[in-house]
């Protein structure tokens, strides 16, 4: 059964889902929702996602939204297919969950307003808040220090294996690394974070996603 993903291949949150599908060998079809035209706020899409965001998915009778819930579901349902994204024990899964929460509450919380101000506002000709950018950079550095420490003794965020904990970070990290110059100082100066990003962005599934996005 081919999963329908409503969203845009270039958008961060749909990418979280598509990357999971590529890692697990799950067939999907992207149904384009034009974010520039605010299609996500129109009645048809609101029926799928009442908060007017992407992605939403349809898999037979199952309809879901929230990318981190979607990947959690597929990682569980297809635990034995493709890359194991969760770990085999409850305790390992708890550590994965912990770092998915960290991405949600710390990395995404800082990276999103940073990317909005540094990338999107200039793109749409809006003034960006320079003071805010500086404040966010300070916060971002503090978060990256924690990651630097963690990755000094762990190959991946949840331990020895690549899991959802790493995967969930990738779309946001791509913005920082490829669409801003922030990566040059903040990430490359941190040996372990730099090593981690280079390793996970070399994965075949990620490269396939980048091909599909055709930046």
């Amino acid at each position: 059964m081919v999963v329908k993903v409503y969203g845009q291949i270039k958008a961060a949150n749909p990418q979280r889902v598509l990357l999971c599908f590529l890692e697990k060998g799950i067939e999907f079809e992207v149904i384009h929702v034009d974010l520039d035209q605010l299609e996500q706020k129109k009645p048809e899409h609101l029926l799928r996602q009442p908060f007017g965001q992407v992605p939403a998915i349809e898999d037979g009778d199952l309809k879901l939204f929230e990318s981190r819930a979607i990947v959690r579901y597929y990682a569980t349902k297809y635990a034995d297919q493709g890359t194991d994204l969760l770990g085999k024990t409850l305790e390992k899964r708890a550590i994965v969950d912990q770092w998915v929460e960290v991405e949600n509450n710390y990395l995404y919380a800082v990276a999103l307003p940073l990317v909005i101000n540094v990338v999107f506002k200039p793109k749409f000709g809006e003034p960006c808040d320079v003071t805010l950018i500086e404040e966010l950079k300070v916060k971002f550095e503090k978060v990256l220090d924690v990651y630097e420490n963690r990755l000094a003794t762990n190959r991946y965020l949840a331990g020895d294996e690549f899991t959802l904990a790493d995967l969930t970070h990738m779309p946001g990290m791509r913005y920082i690394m490829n669409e801003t110059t922030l990566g040059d100082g903040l990430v490359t100066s941190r040996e372990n974070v730099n090593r981690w990003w280079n390793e996970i962005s070399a994965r075949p599934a990620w490269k396939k996603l980048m091909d599909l996005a055709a930046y």
Partner: protein
Amino acid sequence: MAGIKVFGHAATISTRRVLIALHEKNLDFELVHVEIKDGEHKKEPFLSRNPFGLVPAFEDGDLKLFESRAITQYIAHKYENQGTNLLPADSKNVSQYAIMANGMQVEAHQFDPVATKLAWEQVIKLIYGLTTDQAVVAEEEAKLDKVLDAYEARLKEFKYMAGDTFTLTDLHHIPVIQYLLETPTKKLFTKRPRVNEWVTEITKRPASQKVLQ
């Protein structure tokens, strides 16, 4: 046996999220108080438990965790067979689990940031001797109104957020709602019939009441 320990502050929203889950499961645990007003959460030894310097942190034997919603999920799975079932009714049905997970993300992304700001402005600031910014309250209440419209529609279809039974999705909402019921923001909940019923149900549960003592 090392047992379960929670390192946190019994009045905080995030710590209460974990405590409610433990009470629902009738689990014995030790609450190790972290004195927030002394900045204890920003220093060692707490930082070794949560390098981001926020409560709560958690220990179950050798397992050490932080992030309240990761902790509650661990508790729900590990102790699945005791106390209240916090997972969907049919444990073999992964789709039901997906719907619960969807709701948990909605709580984290749409509800919690707004609700927490309202609790901060109207309750927590006062404890620190600061004044409520009514403009912020008005702005955040307008956002909460939109979220609760979506919740009202959802709860017309289902008794609880993820289906017919109480799950983690409902539980995660309880601590901040308890604070908001002490403020004028209460009216946003009470004016919506199904949301009002749901709020009444989830806050009157014995486990929810225990954290208020």
